[in-house]
């Protein structure tokens, strides 16, 4: 099977049952995406498929042969971090680090959803919601962090979001 991951073509012989997550971890040595529950209950496996965040544990690799897949390895490297990766380090948005790649991929997808004007469960209006810290909390709730770096993750995302969209940040205040 052929896959495009982080812009690179990959080939792998996999079982038809192989999930996208196990393809990454067990066949392509892309172990940045984590398996925390294997049932879509924790978000540690979050990757971006065609720009959207999904749980890679709950989808079959075979169903993604034509997709653009971006994993944490495709966002940045220790030497050249993505702004969200750098903000997570700065704000200590993790402890053990196991949920972290999923949190960061999720945050990338989430900020894109915000940019598209998508509302959330906590939006006061469905039309053009303000991007408050409560919005970050709700929208990131599919990513569990047992070390509970939650407040620091919110700070990290807030910093990157504000840098990205100063006008919107002002509106939120």
């Amino acid at each position: 099977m052929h896959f495009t991951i982080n812009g690179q073509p990959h080939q792998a012989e996999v079982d038809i049952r192989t999930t996208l997550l196990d393809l990454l971890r067990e066949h392509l040595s892309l172990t940045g995406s984590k398996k925390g529950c294997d049932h879509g209950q924790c978000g540690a496996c979050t990757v971006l498929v065609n720009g959207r965040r999904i749980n890679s544990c709950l989808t079959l690799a075979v169903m993604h042969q034509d997709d653009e897949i971006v994993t944490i390895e495709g966002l940045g490297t220790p030497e050249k971090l993505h702004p969200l990766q750098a903000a997570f380090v700065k704000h200590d948005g993790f402890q053990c680090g196991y949920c972290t790649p999923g949190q960061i991929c999720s945050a990338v997808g989430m900020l894109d959803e915000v940019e598209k004007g998508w509302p959330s469960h906590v939006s006061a209006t469905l039309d053009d919601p303000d991007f408050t810290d409560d919005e970050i909390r709700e929208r990131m709730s599919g990513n569990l962090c047992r070390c509970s770096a939650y407040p620091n993750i919110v700070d990290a995302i807030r910093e990157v979001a504000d840098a990205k969209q100063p006008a919107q940040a002002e509106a939120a205040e």
Partner: protein
Amino acid sequence: MKLFDYAKADSAEAAVREGADRDTKFIAGGTNLLDLMKLQVETPARLVDISRLPLNDIEEIEGGGVRIGALVPNSDLAADPIIRERYEVLSRALLAGASGQLRNKASTGGNLLQRTRCYYFYETAARCNKRVPGSGCDAQEGFNRILAILGTSEHCIATHPSDMAVAMRALDATIVTLGSDGERRRIPIGDFYRLPGDTPDVENVLRVGELITHVELPPAPAGRQTYRKVRDRASYAFALVSVAGIVAIEDGKISSAQLAFGGLGPMPWRDSAVENALIGRAPSDALFGEAADLLLRDAKGFGSNDFKIPLTRRTLIATLRELTA
């Protein structure tokens, strides 16, 4: 997960031809099916991948309603401008469900077909009539906090876990299908789900190989809309109780009421007696209490879910207050 054959369908017609077999399942988002297959709760011999079918559109239809392709992801449906503007209850219900990641993957059709979250359904070592017909039900005398108080049978007390479907039930959605014989059916959502009775494994009226292609919503109803979900944490949890409500008032009296409930029964629950009791009367706490009592007239708890009865009563009253304030 057991081995299965895998086929990609390139048209709905091809899909239903491929799918005309009891051991075949369609896979779209896969968020519930793969979850269950990993545990061998579901063991299809064949999967027909319908994820690339052109069933991704949300379009207005003649007469003012909306047709939603079965593969529209939950996120896109919730964010769609028409849905947001005219069907707030649906948008809100979708946003109250699961997580951003799951909503990006889960499809409209698949969401309608979600299986129950009953602990004993998920545990292959437990007795469950839904999973293994005739094996018994471990839930009734076990831990049943999240299970049903309405519409149960001696064979099953499972709840339908969807939020979206609750809103669609309140909105009187119609489910459009394509059968393996090429026949199209239009099934009102009120006729779509089945009570467990003595066949809790049969959850809806779909026939073997029949594919949901669309869901249609009638023109946006008059009145205010809301979706109130009560759960065990602030987000990313299934409903203990939820209420999808659409209520209109004319001349100080309730002129229409559409109320559906999640977390209470084996299907998104709706009870015309409750709505009829409200219509034509002036909103008041006494009236709301009466409506709640009607809703719960046959409610039965099984121990750890007894609290759902007072919780539902309180939640419904408060929701009606909000809708009529």
